[in-house]
């Protein structure tokens, strides 16, 4: 980890409660504005790598859009894993049914890891990140 903070984004670009994905030196990072305080987390969900900026932010809690794993953006902690989805009452055609069953079987072995966070600094209207 370098000591240097680098400019990531203009603070005005993210409204309170909002998020934006940026790429800094090859790192995909999501910057969150939580009531005027900026947090930076890695973009990829600790479950199956979905882009977290496409999820929802409520206070300091971010919910992934893919399977709804939840994270604390202040420390990257994974708070809950995927929510089981329901394919409804309609019985799928055999090939699809088997495919979905297989996916479900594989997903049982996927853990939800906590995500990396980055230190941030607000300076002269810019959000800066330490990689």
């Amino acid at each position, binding site marked *: 980890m370098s000591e240097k903070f680098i400019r990531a984004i203009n603070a005005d670009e993210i409204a309170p409660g909002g998020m934006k994905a940026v790429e800094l030196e090859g790192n995909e990072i999501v910057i969150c504005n939580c009531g005027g305080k900026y947090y930076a987390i890695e973009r990829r969900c600790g479950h199956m790598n979905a882009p977290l900026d496409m999820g929802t932010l409520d206070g300091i809690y971010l919910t992934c859009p893919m399977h709804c794993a939840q994270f604390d953006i202040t420390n990257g*902690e994974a708070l809950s894993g995927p929510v*089981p989805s329901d394919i409804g009452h309609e019985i799928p055609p055999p090939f699809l049914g088997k495919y979905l069953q297989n996916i479900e079987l594989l997903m049982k072995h996927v853990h939800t890891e906590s995500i990396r966070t980055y230190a941030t600094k607000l300076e002269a209207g810019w959000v800066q990140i330490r990689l």
Partner: protein
Amino acid sequence: MSQSLVNIESRKKSLHYFFEKVVGPLGFKFTPDKEMMNFLLEQEVILEGRHGIPFCPCQPLRNDRMRDMQIVCPCIPFHRKHFDEIKRCWCGLFVHKDVLDPDKLPQLPPKEVNNE
């Protein structure tokens, strides 16, 4: 996520945050019995670890998505009339906002409540 991998206190705190926003507009609050509140939230974290969803710790899962969704906490909207009558939800995690002594609220099923 399996229960062994989640930090129970962290998850309880986040559930508290989310639930508070939902039950307030419905006229409910967390029970003032902190010990009961903590116990029930902890059970819900355990249930979430088992099933992926924080279900009510005191109602049966039926293996029927339609029915099971009705006991996802906070389940007040699905039992509004009943819970408004007894001034609490079934497991007692939530009580009416004016309740100061939750111990005095009996756990009566729908059949035994005035309007049923």
